[in-house]
């Protein structure tokens, strides 16, 4: 709750709180030369022209400015000695880009309010447009027969109904245009606001005079269509942004600290280097630091993707974000806090990678400005062409402005990707970032992570070798009883066995195994007597030994499970001419064994997140289009930087929030059909864009020649938009019956 108050970004908020030293490290991280680096969410950044404005605003005050239109984030470095962060935040706010400091969770509420306002505006726009059209109907059909008094009544009625439809519903366009013009820039909002303002203003004047053409219907319909287009387009972006913000909100904010007064709960930001921290069983480690206990078992899957428990001895380093798997709490001394933790560094690395992604953005930036200026020039030229006739020149100017509005163009891509996304969802592939569909068909290299992606995260009992009288079933039943209820990965392998025995006095010994009493006898299950500790290398199968008081009873071999569909998918990818590489944090032996089994030729073992990212960027430099498939936080930076990325459903939430595609069906086999659907979607998009461009270009001369009334331009624009949507919806119908088993059954 406190965070919501400190982070109410949008309107004239006191940003000074972010300059306070205790918040500094959770807001920004140190950069070379005494500078600090910060990542912000930015509302109100919808187009390439806005990106240009932000960059100009920060020019000279901040360096390394990077923006991501995809996730609406902004990243830059600033010098706190020269200008505090609050001043930069304030000037962004003044320019209409309410900045949100991402570590806080107020963003969610702001987003919800924004969506509500948008829906209310669309509702008002639709109601007003329908009513105005109804009231305008007599003037189109039976102008001559309408009594002069009634005609004037209809004019005033339209004026009244159109006012909220223009001023309230159309407000975002006016605001956007004003903010752009104040910065001496142009964006799409400028042409929209100009045409709506001209149509509405001229009509209002003529309503007062009581004669002449009125264009309330054009103005309201225009606002309505544009609002709907913008809403559809923004919805998928908002969903992706929500995931990221929810994740940020779920982050730990407090920790248990041991002090002279006893154990106290303190905010995470108050933890200082040298503090003694306590981590309860099942809780996550709050900061990086050294273990003070003799030994502890931890799950570092979030950070390294390593699904096996990791044993840390006294004095060894624990990483923030790993889970305490032990039965007891552990004690540690804080060594790195805030932005200096490994978790925070990985997060920063991946946000950096994400910000660099859109390669086409620079071009779009330049084109948008040029296009808008051309349209405005053409509208003025059209008006000048007919000048002495004020009525005609106004109507031509309006027709040009409306006809050149790329409504169908703006729907062409979102409509097709939405339809493709619903087909993909049926296959078990969720599309988090629709832009990725455009790149999926061009993919020529696939990079796979190993643990959790090509192999499953869990262990399986592969073999039981009995060493004494009790038979296999007996040994397994005792082992299952000993492991029951523990959170350890090894315990999960036994969880599926039937519950025939029960254990008492269960005790977990970190790095050794478990002990307990079953049917009056004391047993232990864990590291074989001849080994120091069990190996955590996922390549080699884990062997554990069951012992009673006197001797070893059985050796149980636990193996990692390779996904059933992994081999087939890799063969299919290779057959389609796509290169496959394996990047893993595991050792060479493990990686090579799996690669041999699956037919992967290129293997990179012992990769850090930085190395994975570097390998990916090297491939991209060579011109390859890369699909990355992974699951852990260590994969997140390279997922974020890949041209297309897919994440497995059991993986870390941070990795998922960075992926374009989420394989919720828990199957790699969906990758090939997804590529096929993406290809179809690309074809629809090409058709749609071609049509929309042809329509806009074809209609423009007609409008300039004065052959097109503004209402015709608006109607043509709507029909063109409908056509584009209908074409996109064809994607939802599967093309070949064989590819869809359900349809196949119905056909026979």
């Amino acid at each position, binding site marked *: 709750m406190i965070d919501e108050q400190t982070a109410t970004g949008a309107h004239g908020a006191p940003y000074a709180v972010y300059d306070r030293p205790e918040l500094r490290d959770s807001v920004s991280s140190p950069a070379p030369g005494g500078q600090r680096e910060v990542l912000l969410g930015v509302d109100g950044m919808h187009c390439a022209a806005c990106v240009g404005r932000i960059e100009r605003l920060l020019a000279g005050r901040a360096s390394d400015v990077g923006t991501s239109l995809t996730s609406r984030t902004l990243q830059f470095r600033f010098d706190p000695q020269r200008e505090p962060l609050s001043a930069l935040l304030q000037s962004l706010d003044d320019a209409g880009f309410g900045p949100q400091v991402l570590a806080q969770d107020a963003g969610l509420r702001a987003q*919800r309010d924004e*969506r*509500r306002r948008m*829906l*209310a505006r669309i*509702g*008002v726009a639709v*109601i*007003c447009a329908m*009513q105005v059209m109804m*009231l305008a109907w007599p003037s189109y059909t039976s102008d001559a027969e309408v*009594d002069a008094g*009634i005609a004037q*009544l*209809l004019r005033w*009625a339209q004026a*009244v*109904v159109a006012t*909220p439809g223009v001023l309230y519903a159309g407000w975002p366009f006016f605001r956007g245009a004003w903010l752009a013009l104040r910065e001496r820039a142009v964006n799409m909002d400028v042409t929209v606001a100009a045409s709506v303002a001209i149509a509405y203003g001229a009509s209002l004047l003529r309503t007062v005079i009581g004669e002449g053409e009125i264009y309330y219907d054009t103005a309201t319909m225009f606002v309505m269509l544009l609002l709907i287009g913008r809403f559809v387009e923004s919805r998928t972006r908002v969903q992706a942004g929500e995931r990221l913000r929810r994740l940020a909100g779920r982050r730990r904010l407090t920790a248990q600290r041991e002090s002279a007064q006893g154990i106290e709960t303190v905010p995470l930001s108050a933890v200082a280097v040298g503090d003694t921290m306590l981590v309860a069983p099942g809780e996550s480690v709050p900061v990086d630091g050294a273990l003070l206990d003799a030994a502890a078992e931890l799950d570092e899957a979030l950070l390294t993707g390593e699904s096996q428990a990791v044993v840390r001895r006294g004095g060894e380093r624990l990483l923030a974000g790993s889970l305490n798997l032990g039965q007891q709490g552990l004690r540690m001394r804080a060594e790195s806090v805030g932005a200096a933790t490994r978790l925070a560094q990985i997060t920063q690395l991946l946000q950096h990678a994400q910000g660099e992604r859109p390669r086409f953005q620079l071009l779009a930036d330049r084109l948008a400005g040029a296009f808008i200026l051309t349209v405005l020039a053409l509208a003025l030229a059209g008006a000048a062409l007919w000048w002495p006739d004020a009525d005609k020149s106004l109507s031509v100017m309006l027709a040009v402005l409306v006809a050149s509005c790329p409504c169908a163009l703006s729907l062409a891509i979102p409509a097709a990707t939405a339809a493709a996304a619903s087909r993909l969802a049926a296959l078990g592939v969720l599309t988090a970032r629709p832009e990725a569909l455009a790149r999926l068909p061009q993919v020529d290299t696939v990079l796979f992570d190993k643990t959790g992606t090509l192999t499953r995260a869990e262990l399986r009992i592969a073999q039981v070798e009995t060493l004494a009288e009790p038979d296999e079933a007996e040994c397994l039943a005792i082992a299952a009883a000993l492991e029951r209820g523990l959170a350890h990965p090894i315990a999960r392998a036994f969880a599926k066995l039937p519950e025939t025995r029960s254990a008492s006095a269960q005790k977990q010994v970190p790095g050794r195994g478990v002990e307990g009493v079953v049917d009056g006898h004391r047993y232990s299950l864990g590291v074989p007597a001849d080994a120091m500790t069990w190996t955590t290398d996922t390549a080699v199968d884990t062997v554990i030994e069951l012992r009673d008081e006197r001797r070893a009873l059985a050796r149980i071999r636990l193996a990692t499970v390779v996904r059933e569909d992994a081999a087939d998918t890799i063969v299919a990818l290779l057959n389609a001419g796509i290169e496959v590489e394996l990047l893993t944090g595991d050792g060479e032996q493990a990686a090579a064994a799996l690669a041999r089994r699956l037919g992967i030729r290129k293997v990179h073992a012992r990769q850090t997140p930085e190395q994975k990212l570097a390998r990916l960027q090297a491939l991209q430099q060579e011109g390859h289009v890369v699909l990355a498939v992974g699951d852990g936080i260590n994969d997140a930076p390279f997922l974020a930087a890949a041209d297309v990325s897919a994440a497995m459903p059991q993986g870390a939430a941070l990795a998922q929030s960075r992926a374009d595609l989420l394989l919720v069906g828990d199957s790699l086999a969906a990758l090939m059909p997804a590529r096929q659907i993406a290809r179809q979607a690309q074809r629809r998009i090409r058709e749609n864009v071609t049509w929309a461009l042809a329509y806009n270009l074809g209609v423009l001369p007609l409008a300039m020649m004065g052959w097109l009334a503004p209402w015709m331009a608006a109607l043509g624009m709507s029909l063109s938009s409908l056509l584009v949507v209908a074409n996109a919806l064809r994607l939802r119908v599967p093309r070949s019956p064989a590819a869809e088993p359900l349809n196949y059954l119905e056909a026979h």
Partner: protein
Amino acid sequence: MEILYVLIPLGIVLVAIAGGILVWAVGSGQYDDLDAQQRRMPD
């Protein structure tokens, strides 16, 4: 056709009421999460 001088303003008032109800409904959060509603247990 004089009745139109009454009916059209009346129509506008009704539209204003409808629009007002819609804005209230959106503002009170009824349209916040349409996807979740189909999965909710009736209560």
